[in-house]
């Protein structure tokens, strides 16, 4: 009986230890703080040029950037896979160099490629991940994670028997097996089908509800649009923008009204010139761009002006500029 009590005490110790740490650490402080991080590879390539970034606890942060922008280098450096040239990183208040154990214990990483040990069995791999992060065996948790990720019926399969989508979920399961506070998802839905992508979004949502901080890199903009609270854009090793996603969409979001005309026009009639219209598709379409944040969109007055001028239209539709347009503009402008 006594040793059982001791065991429970030991398990409690971890909880108390983490409580203690969180007390030491200001809860308002960012969970990840990157300062002046620089990485120059041995070949001379400067992958990160003095990057500074703060991630708040519990948020979903999407890191966007074109290929080769430095997304993976940044993530890998935070996770300890790459030695930074200069700068500092702290996770949960622990420096990743000086206090690497405490810092890394908080982090789970799902890498972009799907590195798996082909001959290993699914269930054992989760136990292995827990062990690596210094945690005792917990079969109930492993079972729960595998069920959440719909891998439970594959628990005794060798990894080589899994499909690509299952391997991806296995990597997420492995990262979750050691109960991270911060989860890095590097291109979590690269090359997976639509259904699986939505599954992954659902998983991320569930994790967010549990209070896990998530940093994901992607170049599927819709993914960031769907999941992120904040968006950071990295290009050529520099963070060129960090912004609340909704604010970003609002700031830069514009809508476009397109009118398909009943009869083509040669030019915009005089009374309509003040509305800032443009004529497209050989005079068959009128395009009006307006700001959704403006006090007045100007649509009502445009419609009445059109009717006054006797211009009839067959159809109309509006489109909103997506994060993708914003992103492309940003990367183009800044470079």
């Amino acid at each position, binding site marked *: 009986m006594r040793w059982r009590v001791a065991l429970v005490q030991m398990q409690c110790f971890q909880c108390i230890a983490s409580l203690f740490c969180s007390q030491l650490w200001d809860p308002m402080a960012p969970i990840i703080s990157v300062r002046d991080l620089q990485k120059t*590879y*041995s070949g001379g390539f400067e992958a990160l040029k003095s990057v500074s970034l703060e991630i708040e606890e519990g948020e979903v942060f999407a890191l966007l950037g074109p290929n080769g922008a430095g997304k993976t280098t940044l993530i*890998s450096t935070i*996770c*300890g*896979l*790459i*030695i930074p040239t200069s700068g500092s990183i702290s996770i949960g208040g622990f420096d990743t160099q000086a206090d*690497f*154990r*405490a*810092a*890394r*214990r908080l*982090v789970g*990483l799902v*890498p972009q*490629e799907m*590195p*798996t*040990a*082909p*001959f*290993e069995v699914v269930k*054992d791999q989760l*136990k*292995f*991940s*827990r*062990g*690596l*992060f*210094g*945690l*005792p065996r917990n079969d109930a948790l492993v079972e729960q994670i595998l069920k959440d990720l719909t891998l439970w019926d594959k628990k005794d399969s060798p990894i080589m028997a899994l499909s690509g989508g299952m391997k991806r979920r296995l990597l997420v399961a*492995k990262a979750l097996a050691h109960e991270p506070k911060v989860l890095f998802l590097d291109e979590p839905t690269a090359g997976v089908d639509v259904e699986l992508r939505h599954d992954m979004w659902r998983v991320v949502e569930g994790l967010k509800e549990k209070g896990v901080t998530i940093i994901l890199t992607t170049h599927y903009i819709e993914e960031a649009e769907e999941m992120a609270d904040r968006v950071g854009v990295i290009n050529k090793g520099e963070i060129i923008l960090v912004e609340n996603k909704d604010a970003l969409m609002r700031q830069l979001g514009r809508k476009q009204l397109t009118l398909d005309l009943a009869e083509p026009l040669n030019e915009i009639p005089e009374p309509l010139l003040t509305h800032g219209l443009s004529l497209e598709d050989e005079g068959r379409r009128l395009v009006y761009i307006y700001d959704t944040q403006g006090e007045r969109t100007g649509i009502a007055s445009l419609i009445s002006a059109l009717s006054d001028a006797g211009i009839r239209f067959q159809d109309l539709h509006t489109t909103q500029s997506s994060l993708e347009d914003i992103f492309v503009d940003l990367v183009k402008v800044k470079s």
Partner: protein
Amino acid sequence: MNYHAIKAIYYFEMARTVRTIMQSIVSPVISTVLYFVVFGAAIGSRISEVDGISYGAFIVPGLIMLSLMTQSLSNASFGIYFPQFTGTIFEILSAPVSFLEITIAFVGAAATKAVLVGVIIFITASFFVPLEVQHPVWMVTFFLLTAITFALLGFIIGIWADNFEKLQFVPLLVVTPLAFLGGSFYSINMLPPFWQNVTLLNPVVYLISGFRWSFYGQADVSLGLSLTMTLVFLTACLAIIWWIFKTGYKLKA
């Protein structure tokens, strides 16, 4: 110390041995039995005693050492190379595990396997020739030191190698010749004086000599020298591994 991590990696490696039992345990035993049949029985019966020991018994320490060295080397090199090849090493490198713990786990598992093979060969040999061990404590010491040292060397090779050819290169072209020419099958006193001196440059000579001394009390070089050379070799391997993790050589960009 992250004991859970050491245990996790160690079990992971040992599980691999169980899965590949034919390759890990059975094949070295079979090849050693073949050595016995060929060198011990067929050729050995025509060779007179070496240093007062029957030839069949004389080669036993050398044969055990040969397997111990090749097994610990290949197990450790493959053990650390394969995760690099598949990319799964990322998890170990991003975990709260120090280089010492990684080394203990991988090298410990490789050495355990080699020791298992060595013990099995020892038992097998006892069916062929009468064996005596005059200094069992020294025997175990040399046995373990050799297994650990060569597992450390294998670990270095596994990190250094970036393809399967390199992984095979050192064991095949360096260690096997050194082991064969290190007095596994002969006493270096049987060589012409010039070659006796050249042989002393071979580190394996000291391992085999010390190990054979623990069996029969006969050695090519003194016990102290054997032990010193083994420890020098061990320290050198540890220093290289320390440097690898310090600089991230081949492991971290």
